[in-house]
């Protein structure tokens, strides 16, 4: 029994121990010290802050470049779902947030490298990014709010736009739009900082009389797809004469003694200050001008009286230039088409086929000169200092400048000079005679002393003792906008040296006085904001 017991013990130990007795035991695991996990970081966008509300398509520039490995690719993802791919640096992605539900979304940038240094994680995520940048944005559908715009101008040099700050959480930028001459608005600038609520426009602001309209929209996205418009504000460039009227007739007329500018509108004679364009006075022209006839405006030598002559009805009003009180109302016995004031009691009327001198105190004809068929005057100008009338006349098929002495109610031709053309308009400026704006004569010698070389048609001109201003057609191009028809006002000194040039929208007539040029609006132009015209300053 003892032997059997020992045998069983031997068998038991043998069967138990045999399988465990082996040379090949389980080794230690190889530990990979070169494997490391992906690096997670919070990403700071260039233009967005984590948690910011965004809308529409947003532009994301991924420009992190402090990797210690060669980047193979970047895959951005929204809520873990990859939406793009790039292998170029910097990586620019465009994300249309409207493709996702409103709310918080995690934006992830997964940066991959060629090598796979992330060990076992590759078994469960292949490929695995080496660097992961994350940030959360809120995709918001709330429409942007409306800002209120106001304009301030620094006298034609710049227009300053001020608006109220937007409270929009999805604010992306302010979009500034500009419209010229009532045409469509065009985007001219973008302000990306919500706290900046001012913009100064200095581009193309040298077209006097032009209407510039602005609006500031708030957009929520990079593509400017979603916008809310502000109110539209208009600014008309220039220093205007403002008067409520419906129909413009004539003006401006300058009175250097009173420093006033006169306009005839709506059967009213209106005066303004030439210093600051301030409205001064007005009189009603009913009785002088009942059917919208043209009125001849003339000042006496002292500039103390204004003569308004209706050559259609032969009515003449003499008005005190200081307070616009009517001094005298006269019905001249004969018709004329141009009137010259010789003195306080006499006027010279340039009639059709006849020269007349009237005494307006007695309302009698002082003298009359019927003109022969071969003496055809075109235009005339009075030298108030000598009471000599200079007449552009065609005699024997040639054009002359005759000097007529009317001092003693005579019509004696005391001098005559050659004129190279028929002149429709002559004006005296100092000792020079400007004929149709281009040809310049010495008023004493009747010798030509100058010529303004301009091929463009001269619509109107005005002279002073030392200067001449021309009004011509022109075009104006504002960068980024369509071409606009306009006028050009050019100022010369009496030596025909160009002093200054302005661009004017819809000019009609000019008056030159002091250090300003006064221009009316085109009477066919629809008045805007009751503007009669503008004063253009050229010196101190």
């Amino acid at each position, binding site marked *: 029994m003892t*032997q059997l017991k*020992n*045998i069983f*013990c*031997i068998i038991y*130990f*043998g069967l138990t*121990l*045999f*399988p465990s*007795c*082996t*040379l*090949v035991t*389980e*080794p*230690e*695991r*190889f*530990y*990979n010290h*070169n*494997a*490391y*996990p992906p690096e997670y970081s919070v990403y700071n966008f260039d233009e967005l802050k984590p948690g910011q509300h965004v809308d529409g398509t947003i532009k994301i520039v991924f420009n992190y470049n402090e990797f210690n490995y060669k980047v193979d690719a970047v895959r951005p993802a929204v809520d873990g779902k990859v939406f793009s791919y790039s292998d170029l640096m910097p990586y620019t992605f465009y994300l249309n947030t409207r493709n996702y539900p409103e709310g918080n979304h995690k934006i992830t940038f997964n940066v991959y490298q060629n*090598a*796979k*240094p*992330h*060990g*076992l*994680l*590759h*078994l*469960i995520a*292949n490929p695995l990014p080496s660097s992961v940048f994350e940030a959360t944005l809120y995709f918001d559908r709330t429409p942007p709010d409306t800002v209120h715009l106001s304009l301030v101008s620094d006298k034609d040099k710049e227009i300053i736009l001020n608006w109220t700050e937007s409270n929009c959480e999805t604010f992306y930028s302010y979009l500034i739009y500009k419209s010229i001459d009532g045409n469509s608005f065009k985007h001219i600038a973008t302000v990306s900082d919500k706290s900046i609520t001012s913009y100064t426009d200095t581009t193309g602001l040298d077209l006097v009389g032009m209407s510039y309209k602005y609006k500031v929209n708030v957009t929520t996205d990079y593509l400017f797809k979603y916008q809310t418009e502000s109110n539209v504000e208009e600014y008309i460039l220039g220093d205007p004469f403002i008067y409520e009227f419906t129909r413009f007739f004539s003006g401006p007329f300058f009175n250097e003694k009173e420093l006033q500018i006169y306009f005839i509108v709506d059967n009213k004679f209106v005066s303004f200050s030439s210093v600051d364009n301030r409205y001064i006075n007005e009189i009603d022209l009913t009785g002088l001008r009942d059917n919208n006839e043209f009125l001849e405006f003339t000042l006496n030598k002292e500039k103390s009286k204004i003569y308004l002559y209706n050559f259609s009805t032969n009515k003449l009003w003499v008005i005190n230039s200081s307070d616009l009180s009517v001094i005298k109302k006269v019905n001249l016995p004969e018709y004329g088409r141009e009137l010259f004031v010789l003195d306080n009691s006499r006027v010279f009327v340039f009639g059709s086929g006849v020269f007349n001198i009237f005494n307006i105190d007695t309302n009698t004809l002082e003298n009359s000169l019927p003109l022969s068929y071969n003496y055809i005057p075109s235009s005339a100008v009075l030298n108030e200092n000598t009471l000599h009338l200079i007449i552009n006349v065609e005699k024997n098929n040639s054009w002359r400048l005759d000097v007529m002495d009317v001092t003693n109610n005579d019509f004696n031709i005391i001098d005559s000079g050659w004129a190279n053309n028929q002149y429709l308009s002559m004006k005296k400026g100092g000792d020079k005679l400007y004929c149709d704006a281009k040809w310049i004569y010495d008023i004493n010698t009747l010798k030509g002393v100058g010529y303004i070389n301009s091929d463009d048609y001269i619509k109107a001109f005005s002279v002073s003792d030392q200067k001449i201003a021309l009004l011509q057609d022109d075009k104006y191009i504002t960068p980024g906008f369509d071409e606009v028809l306009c006028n050009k006002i050019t100022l010369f000194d009496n030596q025909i040296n160009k002093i200054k040039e302005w661009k004017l929208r819809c000019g009609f007539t000019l008056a030159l006085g002091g250090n300003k040029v006064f221009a009316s609006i085109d009477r066919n132009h629809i008045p805007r904001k009751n503007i009669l015209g503008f004063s253009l300053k050229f010196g101190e």
Partner: protein
Amino acid sequence: MKNLIILFFFINSFGVIFPQANYTNFDHFFGIQLNTGLTFFNLNPLKNDFKSSVEMVSRNYNLPLQIQHLYPTNISWSGNVFWYFSPEFCLVLGPEYTSTRAFSMYEDYAGTFDLKSEIHQYYLSIGVRKHFNDVKIVQPLIGVNFGLVQFNFMNTMDLNVNNGQIKNHNSYEYLDNGYSIEIYTGLTYDIKIGVVELIASYRYVKLEEILIEPDNFNIKLGIKRGIFK
């Protein structure tokens, strides 16, 4: 060392049970023998499969896997019962067990990835042996065994990532049977308390299904005691 202590205890226990064996006076007796040895495996298909698996994972996932053991030589254990029907010839009957393994064990910050493979081989053989007792000091012997064989083949893959957040265990096991033919030669030496044998053998193995080239070469060291009739 643990195995050697067990073996020492085991062998000495026979001394209590059985009287001393002596080849000069045996006459139809039974003997019992215990062997331990080394088995040198071929197993080339298995080695190639394991290498391919490791290389594929290593290449695809950039894991620097290493093959730490690839079915190396391993200890074998066997036992025999003898029946000497003449002083020089005997019948031999006995089991044998051997095994080997392959390992690729990997670890990094994220977890562990283990590839393991094991083969367990069980033999039950019967054969005939001839001793050349005329030789002095050490007596050579030759023999041949025929036997049945059972192969138990297991592969396991264990993945543990982020402290068990992701765990994956795959394993498969084959059990195949066959037969074997073993030829061997050796030497015996009488150490009074028993007879020590040193045997070298080559075993041809034929399995029914799996093709793993299971032939092997063996060196065995054993001690034998006899039971007198």
